[in-house]
């Protein structure tokens, strides 16, 4: 995925309805990734405290209309796309969410083994080592 082309889909790995932290709510902004596997790593990290509600939200960029898209001015291994809205506003514009275990099963059929032990201290490495994915693969 090149930096110049906006993706069709965005993904946010989190827990169901998570409001975000103070910074996300005050600015406000909601961070997502254009890469579903990278979003899945974040959701897996959420499992340690939230084993039943860790999920990945799916949004279609065109349908999140009228919202400022903020760019990370630094290179982003997460393939980050951030929206100038509170997380719960973003969730309302999403198509829905997929539970971690279901998404792990789905992406395995596409060659991504995501049955990994994920923590804050290996998130960066996992994101860096995750191969690129095409829009066709996501579709």
């Amino acid at each position, binding site marked *: 995925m090149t930096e110049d082309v906006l993706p069709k889909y965005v993904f946010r790995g989190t827990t169901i309805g998570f409001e975000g*932290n*103070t*910074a*996300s709510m005050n*600015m406000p*902004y909601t961070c997502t990734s254009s890469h579903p596997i990278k979003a899945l790593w974040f959701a*897996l*990290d959420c*499992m*340690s405290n939230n*084993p*039943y509600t860790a999920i990945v939200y799916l949004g279609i960029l065109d349908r999140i209309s009228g919202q400022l898209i*903020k760019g*990370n*001015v*630094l*290179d*982003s*291994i997460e393939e*980050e796309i*951030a929206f100038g809205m509170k997380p719960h506003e973003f969730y309302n514009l999403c198509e829905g969410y997929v539970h971690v*275990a279901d998404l*792990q*099963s789905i992406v395995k059929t596409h060659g991504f083994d995501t*049955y*990994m*032990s*994920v*923590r*804050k*201290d290996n*998130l*960066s*490495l996992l994101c*860096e080592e995750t191969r690129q994915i095409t829009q066709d693969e996501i579709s």
Partner: protein
Amino acid sequence: MPLDDTMTLTIQGRAEAAILEKLSKEYELNESQRWLFVDYSPQKISLESQFDVLLEGDSKSLVPGIFVVKVLECLDQFGNNLSDIPEGFKTICKLEFFPEVPHKIDTLPSLHTWKHNPNKITLTNHKTINLAISSSYVDDLSRIAYFLILDYRNSANSDIITKSEFYTYLETKFQVNSKHAADILTVFIQLGKIKPINNNHIELLAAV
């Protein structure tokens, strides 16, 4: 990571003036201060928080010396000033070192963005440090424990057991405490080997 229930901050590398310029921020530093790329924070950390232990690399070997490190400022990836280091955020932080900036900090790579660094520096505190168990140990234990748990399942004649039974079994077999038993359960769930049924029950699954 080996530091359970402990305030930690992981430094991946140095942020030079050009990075702060990109974020439209002043680079201003005195000789005891540095701007540094900080990895995802496992907990919220207030400004002015202090650390007195430096650990190097993935192995987290102790960096000898007496240090005090204070968090002065915190920026997010858009250059916003944050009032603390939020849990789960990557940040660029201005840190102050006493009595001087350790050599290990100044020999960290100069980065353009956050990047995994096997020679990262982890900051923590003597008072709360707990080196009793490491994340790699939890991962290794999880691999061994899985087969024993399968045996346990066969003897119990059920794929569904209570969390309490699971914790007690691990605590008995491996002398781990309940926090570490819970960590192992999390790893099993991430690996797809256990499915949470409800708050009290889990289902043992065949290997994925």
